[in-house]
Structure formats: structure tokens, C-alpha cells
């Protein structure tokens, strides 16, 4: 009973009586009184306003580390780099779950407790609200003049006339209105703003809807990504993904059987002015087949405009260059030919990549190096990229011979060359010999034979592919929450009383108002009502209320 009376600011006991009614909580074990009492006490603590407040603070606090420490789910490569930079700190953070703050035990515990508290808070209030849905405005407190919003005057008009006018006026203002007989007169009691509590309840319930909706979306959805070189195709099966994170309830067999080919990809770059080199527009032309056997159709995939097939969405989230090379081995045979994905390192799109040629004889070949879309030489003749567009493509590689280590069993990244059993191909005198290539150029690989030709380049696109079933649920939840919030914050429950009684041949009129939430201004309402109720000859005397002006 106690803590709910905290939930409303005005201490009008009678007004609270309805709201404070709480069902008895705790297990019905009469024999185990103390545990039962303890449980009840705990529950009451948990569902108190103060606990909700503290939990809200804790939630805010617990969210902070995730913005300062890289998160595995957000940016795995940043976590990787962080671990390398702080080898001694990382295990500690790991143990505290700080690389996955938003799925950590602490964070989850806080929001689950908050939700529990919310349910515990809402259910009794729902019941109370339900019961009060048809409540009539209550009779006036005995001493109206104790309320801060209060007016009193005397008039020669007979009592029933004033009562009639007051009731009509209050009804016209769409307040629930009730007449109560009183000593020597009548009380007109009116109330407005019943929907505020409804709005508040709706808001809190909608928060639950959002949470449940998000959970369902995660459980039954998936998120993955794939990099596709222009000209290549993608079909929606697990093996075609670079990474794939399914929700706990997602079945891979549910993957929609669509496929598409990336026919072309195009970037417009800003070429002049201070924003030179920023991308203005990307688009990728796809040819999409919704299901095996269906007629393919073209789709222009752009940022902010995903392709949607059977509830699965394909987003364009990144792009890069894929230099196209042909490698011949010592025997003169083509051991590799085709485009290789290089990863852009910065806004100039200088891109790093690795070419592995396991099929070459007599030894395997490997290359690593950089692709410069607009190659240029710096003051110390270091190459760099002067522009992200491919105006002057240059490929700079270092070659290796030996064993690529692919048979060792351990999975290898396609972007890392395992150099344990490789040795660098050097030039005269054993000096490192970078192979600088322009499109169409071929370089021989020196002793041991073989050559590499830079045929040109393709582009590749990074696609994020995801399915978020039931996403309308959290969306609806938020919209309901906002609606409820508006009702809750802008509807002001207000009680108004007009007491009219005869006294020595005159009629005494008292008007008083009481807000049930703070932030309102009942005084100006009462002043307004008073000025409308008084017969015209009295009105000029009305002083301007200071409160009314604020």
C-alpha cells in the first residue's frame, strides 16, 4: 500500500485510495510466515518507484562501457586490434564481458529486473484503472478554501441558477460532472483527464511489446554478409556467406532460395572542391531470380534502398577493388587467373590483399601487397593513392615461393599469407624486389621462373543480408509508446468543485480546483471558471492572478 502512494504527487488521500489498492503478494504459505513476508517485502521493494528509478540509472550506467570499448558484435576487427594493443587488459575485460556489454549478464539482469518491476507495477495499476473506468467525480473536500486554486464570491443570483450554469459550463468543457447535495446548497463536482493514466499504462505496456518484439526478431532472424565481385553471382545458401549469425531459433533451411548476379557496380566520386574524394552515389545493378526457375529481373541496388525478397533484405554496405591477375608457374602454365578481393585501408581506397597460388609447380607461389586506384609517388618515392577512383591503377606486390601451408589443416584467412615456409622472391643482390604493375604489364618472377600479369581490375560489393521477422512488432510498440506518452504527459487530470449555498439571503459561490499531477496550473483554470460563472457586473473587479500569467 505504501509505496504506491508515492506515485502521485498530490496527497489527497481519498483520491489515492483507489490507486493504492494492491493485491496481496507473496506465496500463500501461512506456515512459512517469515519467508512469505520476506518475499512480499522483496516484491514490494522491486516494484517501487524508487527501485524503478535506480534500475533506470543502472541501465544507463551499464550501457556506457559499450561505447568506449569495442564490441565484438559491432566491430570484430576493432576488438581484434584492441586485443593486440592491450594484451594484458583484454583478458580482464573478457572476463567482465566488456567486449559484449549488451549481451552480458549484468546488462541483461538490469533490464530483466526493470521489466519485472514494470510488470509488477503495471498489473495492479491496470486492475485499478479498469475498476475506476466508470468512476464518478468525488464530492468536494469539506474545506475548499484550503486548496491553493480557490475563488469565493457572493452574488444575489439564486442558488439553482448558479448551479445550473456551473454544471452546464463544466459539461460543456467535457468534464465528467456530478451534483452532490450539501448543507444549504449543492456541490458541482467535475473531473477530467481520466485518459492520462491510460496513456501512462499504455506507454509502459508498449515498452514490454518493444522488448518482446526485439527478442522475437532476434530469435527468428539472421544477419550475414557476403562480398561479391562484379560479374559473379550469389545464391542464398550458408556456404556463400562470409559470416553468418543466426538467431537461436533460426533454421538454415528457412533461407529463401533466391539468387542474383552483380552485373555492374558504379561509384560517383566528388571530383572537385573541399569534399574531393567523398563518394556521392553508389549503385549496383543486380539480376535477381526470386526462386529457382523464376524469370530473372533487374534491380538497381543502392545505399538506403535494399532489395527485398521473401522477407529477406539485401543491403549494399561497402565496396572495393579486386585486381585481376594471371600467374604462370615455372612450367609456363597458367596456375591462377582472375580477380582477387583487396580490402580498402582508408578513404583513398589504397587496398591490401593476398594472392595465393597453390597449383603452381615446382613450388607454390604467394603474393601480398597493395592496389592503388590512382597511383602516385610521394616525396620519398613511396607510392600512395591520390584519389579513390581508379584513374591510374597500380598494383605493388611482393612475391613468395615455397609452401603456403594450406595443407596444415588449420583454417587460414584469405587475407593473411602464412610465411613460415615461404621465402621472398628477391632481386639482384638479395634485395627485396617489389613488383610494380600497371594494367596489361607482366613481370617475370626471376630465378625459378614464372610470371604475373596485371590484367586490370574488377570491383566488388559488400552486401549485408538479413531477415528480421516480426519487425513490425517493436515498431508498433514504439509508436504505441509515443502515443501513450503524449497522453500521459499532456493530459492533466483535474478535479473542479463549485459549491453553491445560500447564506443570509445571498448566494455564496466557492470554486476550487485540484490537479492530480504536477506541472499544471489549476489556479488559472479556476480563475477562468470564476470569471465565466460570475454575473457580468462583477467581472471588472477580477484581479489578474500572478500564477495565471506564468
Amino acid at each position, binding site marked *: 500500500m505504501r509505496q504506491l502512494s508515492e506515485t*502521485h*504527487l498530490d496527497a489527497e488521500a481519498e483520491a489515492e485510495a483507489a490507486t493504492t489498492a494492491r493485491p496481496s503478494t507473496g506465496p500463500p504459505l501461512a506456515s512459512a510466515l517469515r519467508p512469505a513476508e520476506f518475499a512480499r517485502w522483496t516484491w514490494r521493494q522491486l516494484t517501487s*518507484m*524508487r527501485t524503478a*528509478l535506480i534500475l*533506470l*540509472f543502472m*541501465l*544507463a550506467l551499464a*550501457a*556506457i562501457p*559499450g*561505447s568506449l570499448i569495442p*564490441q565484438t*558484435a*559491432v*566491430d570484430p576487427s*576493432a576488438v581484434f586490434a584492441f586485443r593486440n594493443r592491450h594484451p594484458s587488459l583484454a583478458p580482464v575485460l573478457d572476463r567482465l564481458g566488456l567486449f559484449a*556489454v*549488451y549481451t552480458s549478464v549484468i546488462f541483461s539482469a538490469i533490464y530483466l529486473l526493470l521489466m519485472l518491476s514494470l510488470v509488477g507495477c503495471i498489473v495492479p495499476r491496470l486492475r485499478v484503472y479498469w475498476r475506476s473506468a466508470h468512476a464518478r467525480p468525488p464530492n468536494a473536500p469539506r474545506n475548499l478554501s484550503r486548496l491553493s486554486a480557490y475563488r469565493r464570491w457572493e452574488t444575489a443570483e439564486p442558488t439553482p441558477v448558479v448551479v445550473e450554469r456551473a454544471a452546464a459550463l463544466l459539461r460543456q468543457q467535457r468534464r465528467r460532472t456530478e451534483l452532490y447535495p450539501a448543507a444549504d446548497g449543492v456541490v458541482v463536482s467535475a473531473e477530467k483527464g481520466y485518459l492520462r493514466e491510460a496513456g501512462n499504462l499504455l506507454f509502459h505496456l508498449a515498452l514490454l511489446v518493444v522488448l518482446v518484439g*526485439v527478442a522475437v526478431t532476434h530469435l527468428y532472424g539472421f*544477419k550475414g554478409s557476403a562480398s561479391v565481385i562484379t560479374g559473379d553471382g550469389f545464391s542464398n545458401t550458408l556456404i556463400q556467406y562470409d559470416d553468418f549469425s543466426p538467431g537461436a531459433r533460426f533454421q538454415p533451411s528457412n533461407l529463401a532460395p533466391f539468387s542474383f548476379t552483380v552485373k555492374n557496380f558504379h561509384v560517383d566520386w*566528388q571530383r572537385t*572542391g*573541399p*569534399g574531393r574524394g*567523398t*563518394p*556521392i*552515389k*553508389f549503385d549496383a545493378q543486380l539480376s535477381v531470380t526470386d526462386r529457382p526457375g523464376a524469370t530473372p529481373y533487374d534491380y538497381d541496388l*543502392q*545505399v*538506403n534502398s*535494399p532489395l527485398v525478397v521473401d522477407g529477406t*533484405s539485401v*543491403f549494399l*554496405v561497402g565496396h572495393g577493388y579486386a585486381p585481376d591477375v594471371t600467374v604462370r608457374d615455372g612450367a609456363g602454365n597458367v596456375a591462377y587467373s582472375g580477380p582477387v578481393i583487396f580490402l580498402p585501408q582508408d578513404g583513398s581506397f589504397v587496398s591490401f590483399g593476398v594472392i595465393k597460388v597453390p597449383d603452381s609447380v615446382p613450388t607454390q607461389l604467394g603474393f601480398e601487397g597493395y592496389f592503388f586506384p590512382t597511383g602516385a609517388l610521394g616525396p620519398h618515392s613511396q607510392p600512395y593513392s591520390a584519389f579513390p577512383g581508379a584513374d591510374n591503377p597500380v598494383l605493388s606486390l611482393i612475391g613468395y615461393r615455397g609452401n603456403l601451408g594450406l595443407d596444415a589443416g588449420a583454417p587460414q584467412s584469405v587475407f593473411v599469407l602464412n610465411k613460415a615456409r615461404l621465402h621472398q622472391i628477391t632481386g639482384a643482390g638479395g634485395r627485396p624486389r617489389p613488383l610494380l604493375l600497371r594494367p596489361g604489364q607482366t613481370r617475370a618472377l626471376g630465378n625459378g621462373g614464372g610470371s604475373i600479369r596485371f590484367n586490370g581490375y574488377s570491383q566488388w560489393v559488400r552486401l*549485408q*543480408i*538479413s531477415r*528480421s521477422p516480426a519487425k513490425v512488432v*517493436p*515498431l508498433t510498440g514504439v*509508436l504505441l*509508446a*509515443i502515443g501513450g*506518452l*503524449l497522453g500521459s*504527459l*499532456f493530459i492533466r487530470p483535474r478535479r473542479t468543485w463549485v459549491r453553491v449555498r445560500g447564506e443570509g439571503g445571498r448566494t455564496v459561490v466557492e470554486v476550487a480546483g485540484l490537479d492530480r499531477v*504536477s*506541472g*499544471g*496550473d489549476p489556479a488559472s483554470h479556476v480563475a477562468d471558471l470564476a470569471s465565466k460563472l460570475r454575473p457580468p457586473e462583477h467581472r471588472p473587479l477580477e484581479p*489578474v492572478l*500572478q*500564477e495565471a*500569467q*506564468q
Partner: protein
Amino acid sequence: MTQALATFNNHAIVAATVVYALALLAHAAEWAAARQLPVDNTVGERELLRVGAAAGAGSSVADDAGADGPGEVLERSDRFGRTGLALTVLGALIAAVGVVCRGLAAARVPWGSMYEFAITGSLAVAVAYLFLVRRYAVRWLGLLVTGFLVTVLGIAVLVLYRPVTPLVPALHSYWLVIHVSAAAIAGGAFTVGALVSVLYLARIRLEAKAAAAPKAPRTGFLWRAPSAAAIDRIAYRVHAFAFPLWTFAVLCGAIWAQYAWGRFWGWDPKEVWAFITWVVYAAYLHARATAGWQGRAAAYVALLGYATFLFNFVGINLFGSGLHSYSGM
């Protein structure tokens, strides 16, 4: 043409800064003029104004109000105040022209960099304040608001200025326009709310002191502001306006993120801090209804909320990485 617009934008923003600074001076003069004049402990200020130099109040005027009676002093103070308000309106109009020109010069909505955030955001603050002046007569906020505007625009002009650059493709979205507009308006209201809360805290301290020494003369401009309870009410209204709008802004941001990156919510640092701001302001609204947390404590919670909001726009833009770091810094 673009160049001309961009240049015009710079001139307009500088001019607006100067006009705001003049408004600041006028409000400072407004405070200073009535500094020595005590507020009658019993009569409301409005009565005081109306009665003017007439009996009663006259006897309590401090000596160095010079030859002027309290009526003239108030008159003069009020004139300064009105001048300050007029200058603020003028400054906001000029700033609005500047913001529009910047948008036209860039052929997009003007919030692609910290500079643009600052000029657009401060315009939102000015508009929110002027709206409140019309609605609730909050001219007593003038000194704080113009001080804030001068500071922000000054920093924008001197430190943050960057030439116009195009938006990266992820920022081409209607949802982004709605998202940032809502966030800017909510931010303007949060700013005004924070300033009102500061005044509330100052005023409640003053009232506590006065309660300890009821006979002491009530001089100083702060006594001319409404009571702490009335200020608190305005603080609540401003925050109650801003909070649903912020909720809506976050929602639009999530929808935009879905279109741009294929996920509604990814705990990107900017998203994290938008969430934290939301939670803290929710805590503020709760605190106002929790025994022991009303009044001063709630005002501190509101200021904490504002601190998290500022951190998102300043801290994360400066230090942050992540998808949102398009601040051009």
C-alpha cells in the same frame, strides 16, 4: 552561385553571433539595472510593476538607485529586457537565413558536420526559447539563453567552420531528414530545459536562504523571476515536450539505420548515447513522481540527461568512430 551562398551563410552566422552578443548585453543590463531593487516580500511583482512608484514599495528602495524611483528603475530594466528580446528575435532570423543558405549551398539538409550541427542546433535553441517566451513569458531566461547562443555560435565560427562538403550516400534518406529534425528540435528543447533547471536550482537556493533570513532584503534579478515552483513547472513542460520527440527521433534513426545498414539498432556509440539520454530523461520524469526525488534531485537528473546529450554531440563526434562519425572533424 554555391560559392556566393556559402559566403553569405558565413556572413549571416557571424552577424547573428554579433546580434546575439548585443542581446546578451541588453539582458545583462536588464539584470544590472534592477539589481539593487528589492522585491517586496509580500506584494507580487506584477502589483509592484503596476503600482510603480506609488507608496509602499517606494520606501524600500536602496539609496544608490540614484534619483530614480523604483518605477523608473523597473521601467528601465524592462526596456533593456525588451531590447534583448527583440535582438534575440533578429539574431534568430539572421541565423535562420544563414542556415538556409548553408543548406542551399550544399544542396542538402545542413547537418553534415560539427559546424552545421552547431548552427542548426543553436537555431533550434533560439526558436524553442522564443516559443516559450510567447507561451509562458520566460524572458527571465534571456541572459542564460543568449549567453549559450553566443558561446555556441562563437565556437562554430572560430573553431568548427568547415567548407561545404557533400553527404556520403548513407546520409541520403528521408528518414535521416526526419530523424535529425526531430533530434534538433528535441535538442533545442533539452537545452532550454537544462537552462531552466539551472535557474530553478539557483532560485531554490535563494528561497532557502530567504527562508532562513526572512527579513533580509530581496534584491537581485533572480528575485524577479517566478517562484521556484513556477520555474519547476516550466522545466517539466519543456522536458515533457522534448522527451516524446526524442523518443520519436530515436525511432526514426532506427528506421533509417535499417535502410542504410540493414539493422535497426547496432549499439554504435551514437546509438548507445542516444539510448543513455533517453533513459536518463525517463529517469527525470520518474524522479518527479518519486518521493524524495522531487525538486532539486529531479533538476540534477535533468542536467545529467543534458550532459549525456551534449556528450553525444560533442564527445562522440570528436573521439568516436563507428558508422555515425561523419562529423567532418
